[in-house]
């Protein structure tokens, strides 16, 4: 059986995961679990899901060989192009699945948290497509730095609620979304955007993202044959990485997740319980959750999906960090060598690749890197930071 098959009956991957939620939400989590289990095993549902992904979201996405980057680095790099999906990131894969499930549950509304706004935009999009009401919680700091996505969500008919508690970023948006869900569980599904939260979310979201890894693995097989030497993806909560890894975990490929320097739950955290799950967490000496600090709103999260903590504990996947400065350089390098402007999140994966090619990644290796989203949403932030460097 694959290391990435399914969690145990308590929702655990090894010692990580579980369902640490208030009694008021236990029933709602069980309901999601029951509906997901039933419909994910249902051929008709799977076909409906696949059909929307292909006819609406633009799947399959290409695996693009990055020729100039490869030449520059001395390793052969392939980019899995989630930036080419509808709404511009891998988030759409998950929300199409959860929005379909919402309809099956007979619910009329969907709520979501968002950091960079990519999950919020994807949720608002799926809600519009399927005629669901949509509300998105977003930290005030992120509302500010991702203004374009806020506008997109509103244009799509979603209500965007700025969250002013705590660090005013993704962590607090999750808290606020959970609080809202409690009072409207009869009519509303909470569409968590990453492989985090209480069981069954980490498992369900990974399954809805599995398509990324499965496509990439088959595409690599066709283009090159065999499996790549190294697979790289950025990790905040970790959904694009989980989806990508699931396609390669049973191959000999080395799996590398890249966390932001200021939000490295696996590299710098310890096991903790927050947002319904037990996982690696940045916390102080008494277990208060610490604030993550990253240039990338999408990775600005002090925890990580429990399955990543599990893969790290097994040594099956390795987790590394990238700092803000090298991430900005990665944005420029990829833009100029490949004509692809990456979002700040996958630019972390690119930064690791640029730094380690010829070191941790031996010259001549083959690499698959998930380009989880396009950079348009970050243009304003990056423009400010790079203003004096670009001429």
């Amino acid at each position: 059986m694959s290391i990435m098959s399914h969690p145990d009956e308590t929702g655990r991957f090894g010692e990580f995961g579980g369902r640490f939620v208030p009694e008021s939400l236990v029933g709602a989590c069980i309901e999601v679990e029951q509906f997901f289990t039933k419909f994910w095993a249902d051929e008709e549902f799977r076909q409906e899901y696949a059909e929307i992904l292909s006819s609406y979201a633009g799947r399959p996405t290409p695996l693009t060989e990055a020729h100039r980057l490869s030449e520059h680095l001395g390793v052969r790099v392939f980019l899995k192009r989630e930036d080419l999906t509808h709404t511009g990131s891998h988030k759409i894969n998950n929300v199409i699945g959860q929005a379909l499930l919402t309809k099956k549950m007979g619910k009329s509304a969907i709520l979501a948290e968002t950091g960079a706004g990519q999950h919020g935009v994807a949720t608002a999009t799926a809600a519009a497509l399927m005629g669901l009401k949509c509300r998105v919680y977003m930290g005030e700091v992120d509302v500010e730095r991702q203004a374009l996505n806020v506008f997109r969500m509103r244009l799509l008919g979603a209500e965007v609620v700025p969250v002013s508690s705590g660090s005013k970023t993704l962590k607090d948006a999750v808290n606020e979304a959970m609080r809202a869900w409690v009072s409207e569980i009869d009519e509303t599904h909470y569409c968590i955007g990453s492989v985090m939260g209480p069981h069954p979310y980490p498992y369900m979201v990974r399954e809805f993202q599995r398509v990324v890894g499965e496509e990439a693995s088959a595409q690599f097989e066709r283009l090159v044959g065999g499996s790549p030497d190294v697979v790289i993806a950025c990790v905040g909560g970790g959904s694009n990485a989980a989806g990508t890894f699931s396609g390669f975990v049973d191959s000999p490929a080395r799996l590398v997740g890249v966390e932001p320097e200021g939000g490295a739950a696996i590299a710098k955290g310890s096991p903790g319980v927050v947002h319904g799950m037990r996982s690696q967490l940045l916390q102080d000496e008494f277990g208060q959750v610490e604030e993550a600090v990253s240039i990338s709103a999408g990775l600005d999260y002090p925890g990580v999906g429990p399955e990543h903590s599990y893969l790290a504990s097994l040594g099956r996947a390795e987790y590394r960090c990238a700092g803000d400065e090298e991430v900005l350089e990665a944005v420029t390098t990829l833009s100029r060598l490949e004509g692809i402007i990456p979002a700040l999140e996958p630019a972390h994966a690119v930064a690791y690749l640029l730094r380690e090619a010829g070191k941790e990644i031996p010259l001549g290796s083959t690499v698959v890197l998930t380009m989880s989203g396009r950079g348009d949403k970050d243009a304003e932030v990056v423009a400010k930071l790079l203003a004096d460097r670009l001429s």
Partner: protein
Amino acid sequence: MTIDLEQHLRQRRDGGRKLLVVYLTGGLNNDWLDLILSCVDSGVDAIEIGVPFSDPMIDGVAIQKASQRALEQGANPLQIMKDLHQLDVPVPLVAMTYFNLFHHSGLERVAGWLVDGGISGVIIPDLPLEESTPWRDVARPQGIATVQLVAPSTPQDRAEVLCRESEGFVYGIGLMGTTGERASLADTARLVGPRLKALTTKPVLVGIGISNPDQAAEAASDSDGVIVGSAIVRRVLDGAGPREIGAFVAGLRTALDGR
């Protein structure tokens, strides 16, 4: 000497009294221990001590703000228990906080802190029954009761199990939502007592959304009593001291006594 939570509440209830539990955030102000004393003087039957956590998932704005302020002032579970150790009150103290504070410092170690602080029971809202066995196995021998919560959404068979497993009392959640004051008592709050008292002889208290004396009396009419949190904490945040809080609690007491 730690007071037995269930025995204490049962005795008072069986004596014909409606029970009043109030919530205060530990370490919120320098005078937080005086607030406890004034609540005791005004006739509470137990005190819930909120041990502040950075991410209070089920709490509304008042308790969120109080938690944040207490943390900014350096509050931590160890110091709060040391402070409570100084206190000698004739009613049980119940700690309310989130599971990570237990998980991070270690269950045995935290149980030791709680015993030193004279804590009789705990309410851990993000530790549902299924996840609670390791903690309860540590807490029970130390004389710490672990209170289970029952929600309006809890199915009947599950409510039976929760009532059976609950220690100290049964916390009947009055409404589907976060802690916080409401303009009127939720319909669901009125149903808690009849529903849960049919399942258990343990004291059944209604909490969440009980905001004033009238609502307290109404919620207690079919249950054994009420828990009032945000209405107190909000007043403290607005600057109320021991005297004003004592007066508010006395008003709740009077309403529950039907005077």
